[in-house]
């Protein structure tokens, strides 16, 4: 059963996608790596980044973490604060 997932976008990922968030329909058992694969297929310029991480509920997620309904998801391109 698919469910919708909203992904917050910042920095260069916001520029690449052209929006500050996007909503995908994902399968129930989708993990972080699968989500990244899906996004890279849809937005090939994401593959050019030095790194691309996913935050789930404000915490850096491992590639095999499953995404649950209601999770707060964000793409994290290379940070450059300071």
């Amino acid at each position, binding site marked *: 059963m698919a469910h919708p997932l909203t992904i917050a976008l910042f920095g260069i990922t916001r520029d690449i996608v052209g929006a500050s968030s996007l909503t995908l329909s994902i399968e129930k058992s989708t993990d972080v790596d699968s989500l990244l694969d899906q996004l890279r297929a849809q937005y090939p310029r994401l593959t050019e980044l030095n790194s691309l991480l996913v*935050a789930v509920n*404000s*915490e850096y997620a491992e590639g095999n973490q499953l995404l649950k309904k209601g999770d707060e998801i*964000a793409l994290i391109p290379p940070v450059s*604060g300071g």
Partner: protein
Amino acid sequence: MILLTHQPIDVPAVMAHVQTGSAGAVDIFIGTVRNQTQQKRVVRLEYEAYEPMALKKMQELVDEVRRRWPVEQVAIVHRVGVLDIGEAAVVIAVSTPHRAEAFEACRWLIDTLKEVVPIWKKEVFEDGEVWVAAHA
């Protein structure tokens, strides 16, 4: 004191926050907007943050620095939005009983902030702009 602010950072207030009677040493790091990078003239900077996560990570840094060093008080303030040349983007202040610890803790905080806190900097030049560190 952990703060993301759209206003200019009040550096004296940050300093006042960390000065205590039991601290003998205060180290303060200020990261400011340079007028050039790699020989290109910078017009302004723009910072954006994933604010709830940035605040959570900053709190984790504060917790960790307190575990590692005998920190009396600590403050991390990061500016977001549009910054002009010379303005402070980040101010980190640490007070400790003795000076070695103040330098080490302050340095660790800024180094680690730059690695893990979700804040992004865009450099705006006269002829274009770039998100820093995004590409090799």
